Structures are given as C-alpha cells and as structure tokens.
C-alpha cells in the first residue's frame, strides 16, 4: 500500500509477507502444487501423449487400464487418458473464466447494493429474480437463441465456449452478491468508514480503499466454490447436449458419457470424477490459504 523510500525502516513488499504467510498453510501449498501440476498436464499433456483423443480403435473398445491405455478405453476404443487430458483444458478454462465473470458480477452488485441504500432494494430484488428463475429452462432458451449467431461469428468451438462461460457466469453470481452485500452492510457501520467520510473520501475511493479489501474473504471463498460450480454446470449442459459438440471432450462430458457403462467399466466414471473433485479440492485449499495470507490480522501469527 505505501512505498516508503525513507531511511527509517527498510520497506518490505507486502506481497512478500503474503507469500510468507501462504507458505505456512500446508494445505494451500499442496493444493497449489497439485493445481499447477494439473494445469501443466492438461496444457502440455496432449502434445506429449502420443494417442489422439479422437482416434477410434474399435478393436480395443471398453478396455480396463493397460500399459497402452493407462485409464482404459471407451466404447469406441478412444483412449480415456488422452480424453481426460484434452477435456481438462476446456473444463479448467470454463471453470476459471466463468468464475471470474460471476465473481465480478456478484461483487459489483453486492457492493453497490450494500453501499448505496437507494439501489439496494432494486438490486436485491433483481438477485431474488435470478435466484427464482428455473435455471435449466433458462439455459436452454439462451443457448437456443444465441448458439448459432455466436458460432457463426467466432467459430464453432470458440463460439460455444463464449456462450457457455457467459451463461454460467450470469446465472451463478447471486450467492456472491448476497454474501458480499451482507458484509458491506456490516462494514459500512464501522467507524473507519465514518472516519473516511469525515475526511471527505468520495464513494468510489471509499469502496476501493475501505470496502473491497475488507470483503475479500467472502469473495475468495465464493471464487473457489465458483470454479467447482462452473465445471459441474458445464458437465450438466454437455449432458443435455447443449454444451460442446459431442466429439469435443470435457470432464463433465466424459463423466456423463461413461455413466451408461458404469457396470461394465466402473473406472471410466472414476477418472474424470477424480479429476474434477481433486481440482476443485486443490482450488479450495488454495483459496483458503490465500484468504488467510491476505488478511493482515492473521498474517504474522
């Protein structure tokens, strides 16, 4: 926050303190290492693993784990490991981008509603409205309406990616907004906000300087949960045939494709499921550690 170049005390970057605190949270460090590993695997894996996820080898269908196919094959003989790697790219990208959208919307609406009493009622009724909407029919309609135009202008995969990320983002910000609003309402009554007002701090700087940093904890928690939520919603959409095209693997798609073969090859459900849960878990731990590290009251204890 402050850079002091005076000779009195050596200024230590705050991010260094944050990193020091983050390191003491063992779960967070393990989670971060795991998340980095997953990211590297899904980014570099498809280039290193020799089998293409789309290669159909009908003679090797429905196999269990073997040396050639460490995660087995599906009913068309496609390599599950290659599919999990390729699917991870899409799932992680969808998860992160949709989370960012919903986080931005949720924080914005929550802070505005909490801080400005005049628009509180309006924004909260809007939030209630979105909460009350039946999600799946809404998604159906949105995707039906916009899929073709977006595909035409951005290409089939990029178009559907934008659509899915956007749709998940604008239908999952409500919890964040409510939590943030509650915290802002409590924060607004604190004396340091009053002190800032007595100084004459204008509202936008008040929000950026005093309100947002202090509602970081619930936002971080929402962010980690949001990634999980987005990955799972994307799976549900893929299952309904509204997500990515059927030859385009994502973790959710793999999971749902495998459910029919659960009795035959139970491990086919386990691999993508494991990938989703472990990724979500690692993100949760990371968020936990980050939240603690960003709080100066906990830091240094």
């Amino acid at each position: 926050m402050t850079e002091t170049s005076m000779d009195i005390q050596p200024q230590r970057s705050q991010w260094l303190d944050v990193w020091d605190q983050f390191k003491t949270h063992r779960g967070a460090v393990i989670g971060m290492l795991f998340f980095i590993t997953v990211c590297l695997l899904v980014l570099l894996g498809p280039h290193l693993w020799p089998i293409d996820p789309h290669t159909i080898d009908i003679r090797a269908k429905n196999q269990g784990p073997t040396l050639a196919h460490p995660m087995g094959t599906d009913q068309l003989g496609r390599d599950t490991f290659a599919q999990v790697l390729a699917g991870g790219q899409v799932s992680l990208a969808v998860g992160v981008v949709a989370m960012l959208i919903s986080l931005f919307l949720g924080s914005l609406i929550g802070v505005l509603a909490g801080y400005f009493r005049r628009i509180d009622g309006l924004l909260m009724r809007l939030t209630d409205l979105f909460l009350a909407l039946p999600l799946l029919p809404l998604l159906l309609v949105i995707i039906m309406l916009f899929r073709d135009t977006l595909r035409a202008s951005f290409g089939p995969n990029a178009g559907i990616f934008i659509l899915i990320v956007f749709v998940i983002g604008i239908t999952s910000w409500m919890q964040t907004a409510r939590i943030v609003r509650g915290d802002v309402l409590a924060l607004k009554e604190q004396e340091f906000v009053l002190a800032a007002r007595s100084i004459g701090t204008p509202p936008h700087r008040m929000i950026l300087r005093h309100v947002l940093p202090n509602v970081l904890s619930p936002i971080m928690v929402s962010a980690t949960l949001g990634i999980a939520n987005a990955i799972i919603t994307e799976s549900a959409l893929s299952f309904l045939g509204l997500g990515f095209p059927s030859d385009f693997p994502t973790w959710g798609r793999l999971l749902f494709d495998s459910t029919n073969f659960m009795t035959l090859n139970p491990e086919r459900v386990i691999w993508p499921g494991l990938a989703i849960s472990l990724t979500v878990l690692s993100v949760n731990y990371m968020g936990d550690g980050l939240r603690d590290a960003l709080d100066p009251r906990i830091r240094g204890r």
Partner: protein
Amino acid sequence: MTPETTLTAAPKTAAPATEGDPLVRVRNLKMYFPIYRGVLRRQVGEVKAVDDLSFDIFRGETLGLVGESGCGKSSAGRAILRLYDVTDGQILLDGTDIAPLSGRELRRLRPEMQMIFQDPQASLNPRMTVASIIAEPLDEHRRLDRRARMERVFELMDAVGLDRDFANRFPHEFSGGQRQRIGIARALALNPKFIVCDEPIAALDVSIQAQVVNLLEDLQERMGLTYLFISHDLSMVRHLATRVAVMYLGRIMEIGSRDQLYDDPRHPYTQALLSAVPEPDPAAESDRHRIILEGDVPSPANPPEGCNFCTRCPQVKDICKRETPAFRQMSDGRFIACHLV
C-alpha cells in the same frame, strides 16, 4: 429561542478563548432518524436523537458535552461534522453555514473539521498500514509527492508520540492507546481548526486515558485547536473542558462554564448527574448526597410532552408536563432549559 452569545469561556490554557468569537455556532440543530415499518416500509415516526440544539464553541476552548448513554451526544457530534444530513438548523463554521452544503462544497470544508473516534480498534481500517491511514487525508486533500507525504506522516507520528518505525505496521499490532494516537494523527493531518472528540478515552485503560488526555491538551496548546469533547466521564470533562453542556434526551439542559456547572449545578438533571460522581476524599464521599432518579429514560422516538426531563425530575411541576421550557440565559451567563430556575 436563539440565545445571544455573551458567554465568557473560562480560559484555561495560554491561548485564551477570545470572548464573543465563536468558531462554531450551532442554531436549532435537529437530527431526526426516520423509523420505517411494515411491508411497504412506510415512515411511521422518527427518533429525535438531537432536538433543537443551540450553542457556540469559542476559538481555542474545549466544550465538554456530557450526558448518559443514548442521549444524543454522539449524534450531535456527528451531525455537527455533517457526517449525517441534518434535519433542520444551522451549523456555522467560521461564518459558513455547512448544514445545507453537500458534495464538493462540503468536501472543501472537511479539512477544517475532524473527528477522533471512540473505538480505536474500529476506527482504523485493519487492512491499511499506519502510514497509509495517517496519509489518507493528505491523499484526499493535498497534492504531495511521495517524499513530502512521508515527511508529513513522520511529523504527525512524532507529534502524537508514535515511533517512526511503526509506519509500516498494521493497526492490530498496537495497543489501544497507540491506536488512539494513530487516530489522533490522522485527525491532525490537515491542520484542522475544530476537532470533535467522540468519547476518545472511553475504550481505554485508566492509565492510558491520562496519557491520551494529556496529549490532547498538549496538542490544543501547540496548534490552537478547538475541541468538542463528548464524554460521559464527568471528572475527565471537569479536568479538560472550559465550558460544559449537559444533554438529556436530545436536548441541552444546561450549558455554562466548568466551574459554574460543577460548583453550582442549577438544572435538576445536572444536579442528579453530578451527584453520581464519586469524591476522592473519603470524608466528603461519606456525606455525598446522591440524587437517584426514578424510572427509565423515555424513548427518543416518543419524548414526553413539555420538558423532556419531566418524567423523572424530582422537582416536577404541572407546567413541566405542558410546556417545553425555553432555553434561557441566566444572569451569570449560563443557559438553562428549566421552568424552575
């Protein structure tokens, strides 16, 4: 209802209050908070937190504002600093009426008046360093380069007795007294003329209270500050204030110089309030006559007819329940709102 000011402040410090030269003049200040009820959130009434206050604060003096919890002391202090939109009345700061101002015009006058808060823990943003807390007023109102800004922050830290090494620490690393010093440094950053101290010592240890009060006195002397000192600690107000105002249920009951008020309280409420102060001398303490008031303070949403104090006054008369007593000046200069004197 608007009393002319001929009150003489008993000068206490080397820089005496100039007679008849008020820095702050408050006239008929009203601060009502609306109460909303029901499904339609209709306004069903209002809490009369501050009801028709009129007084002056002279340059260089300390006006003590005392009263029991919930009597509207803090609301009055905040309304005078325009932290609230006042319902009605005038607040003249150096001749400018700040009650109707808003936005940019009000912001330009903010450096003139500052506040020191009760809870030193809550009044400091836990996520900002001491330096950035003290520098916030500078960032808002002064164009300083980084070096000048830090120089000023260090100057302020020296003035309130904080070690310069603390600049990059966070508020939670400090004791209550040190936190209050940070709050004081922030209030002083823009060289204000007028400071509202909203129970600045109530949350502190007794040993620390003396330090902070001495610091406040010292700063007043050096910088020529004017204080409105809100407190329920009557002995501390006696030590610090040049004049004292006594509030009850949103109204000022009696206002006069410290010695007038403490030696010869006239208003029944002031008498009762002061009789609660323990005497340090055991002999005097043993025959101290306490006036114990019956009943509770009425709700400020529904104050009684007539005098606000009539429900608990030991000397209540019929007229008290019918007519609101005027705020009159006595021959000795003090103002009292009571039918009996």
